[in-house]
């Protein structure tokens, strides 16, 4: 059992390290989509400059 635990522990640390290094999340995001024509249509997608967002 101790050998099994040793392997399990090493695997767990390796998994944790990989998840942290690669920026993994446990749950995937629900990704939407904004079509290009909407993004380019007036009133649909507004560019950074249009919205005057930045200082």
């Amino acid at each position, binding site marked *: 059992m101790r050998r099994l635990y040793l392997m399990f522990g090493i695997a767990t640390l390796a998994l944790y390290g990989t998840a942290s290094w690669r920026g993994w999340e446990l749950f995937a995001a629900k990704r939407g989509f904004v079509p290009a024509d909407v993004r380019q249509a007036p009133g649909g997608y507004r560019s*950074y400059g249009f919205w005057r967002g*930045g200082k």
Partner: protein
Amino acid sequence: MSGYSASCPSCGAPVTFSLGTTLLKICDHCGSAVARKGVNLEDYGKVAQLIPTPSVLALGLKGGYEGAPGFELIGRLQVDHGTGTWDEWLLSFGGDSWAWLSESQGQFHYMGQAPAPPVPAFEDLRVGQTIDLGPPGVFVVTEARSGRFVSGQGELPFAVVPGSELHYADLSGPQGQFATLDYGTGSELETLYVGRKVALDEMGLTPVRDDERLARAQGRSLSCTQCGGPLEVRCPDLTQRIACAYCGSLLDATKNYQVIAKLTQPPFQPDVPLGARGTLFGVEWLCIGAMERSVTVEGVRYPWREHLLYEPAQGFRWLVESKGHWSFVEPANAGDVQEAVGNVCYHDAKRYKHFQSGEAVVDHVLGEFYWGVRQGDQVVSHDYVCPPYMLSRESNDEEITWSRGAYVEPAEVWKAFGLQPPPRERQGVGAIQPWRWAQDAPKVYGWGLLFAGLLLVLFVGFSIFGGSVVHRQNLAVPVGAASGSPEAAAFTAPFVVERPGNLEVAIEAPVSNSWMYFAGALINDEDGGLDEFDADVEYYFGSDSDGSWTEGSTTARRYVASVPPGRYTLRLEPQWEPGKKPPAYNVTVRSRVTRFYWFLLAGLAVAAWPLLLGLMQLRFEGARWSESDHSWSASSDDEDEE
């Protein structure tokens, strides 16, 4: 005066004292004990015929020991302590130098004289007490009793009338040392002997060929003097008592098998039959006897069975069964046991904890025994455990013995002796039953701590050095924009995410006793991918009768999973508390950041095994100790009563 010769005062035959220090000579011709009193000889009367013992030595044998000058056996003393007779052989090294070689139950102890420190008088000795013997060390009294000088041969170093009571105490010391306090016929110490257990070959002695003894040692078939049933004596050399397998009567093997206790049927059937042979720990043992013993606690009898095993070169061992649990028991040197405060003792670098004590009684016996066992024999027993080992101390007023038992799996016993049917189911947890994971547990606990430590280091490392900032920007709500309106929304400048992974969006808004809410969206400028999120920033503070307080934070963090590489823009649409002016806020976007829940999950995973193992061990040990004098469930009152 060595080499002194004279005539026997009884028969006139020549008697010679070969050693200057011997004071008694048994006349070879008439058997009189001739004492040397200065230059005169005195007749102390005739000694009895030699008691037939299983001795393999004889007067005149020569040997050598540890580089000392060669010796010769010049005297033999036979002492009867009531339940048996043993032989003491006097070794002469020439001149005035001599030592004893004690022979009992096939074992030999070499004992030489040593300077005697002050010791208690014989009447004040108690078994179990420790005595500092000076250079040899601290010894424990294992036996204190009187024996009768019944017979002898050759020369002896003291002048004692045959039949006299001799007082002595045997002591056990460190590293297998033995000592004997010889009080002679009085109560003050006469001589101290110190030595150790030896083998005949290391003494340079060769057992004498004794045809009669060999005939006896080959075993003999007799009939029970009580029931007439066949009585097979498997160890005639050493057997003192034999209990008939047919009627259970107890016979004295040293006195022509006369009946000591009459029975009509055997009291029990041992699991290992008498005469069965089996190999345990690499030695083939012969089962020659069995007994049932018990302790009674609060009116409840707790029995167990002991099987006596014999092997000529190894001597005797016990195979003990209690509630289906088995242990292999061998003698332990009392001098090597250190009893300490707190109900613990140490032996062979192991720490034993007290388990239980009681008055053990011999209830039934079957087969052969090397001592004068009797039904009803009673000793006080103390058991100490260090699974899979048990250290047991048994004592009465005259003797104390220690033994060490090792747990044996029942299947191993069954296999060794070829027993049928299969062993009984074990009841509960045995006193020294090893826990299944006893070997693994310490490693698992240790590794668990190591993994937890490494995990913490990794977490701190990733938290400080992990992730990379891909964008940072200050944003402000346009003047006149309404809360939650499209006019209030802002886009960040486009930024590039180079590696796939999560993104952390941290919004820091210096709100004061207020809040800001952000409806956010991460927009991939290249393919239009959209991840929406929202974030609350609220921070309140104040003071009341308990003092000052704060609630919330001026920073909110949100995470977007699995963001592919690309060019992105962040859209934030703020809302704020009506009537308050929204502050400017700061947005920081980091890629590939560690998450606390990974740390939590990994921590739980590496801790689960040791925790589960610990619970199992706790349950197992609880069951073990529930049968002891120190049950974990016992109330403190019970403990106090103990």
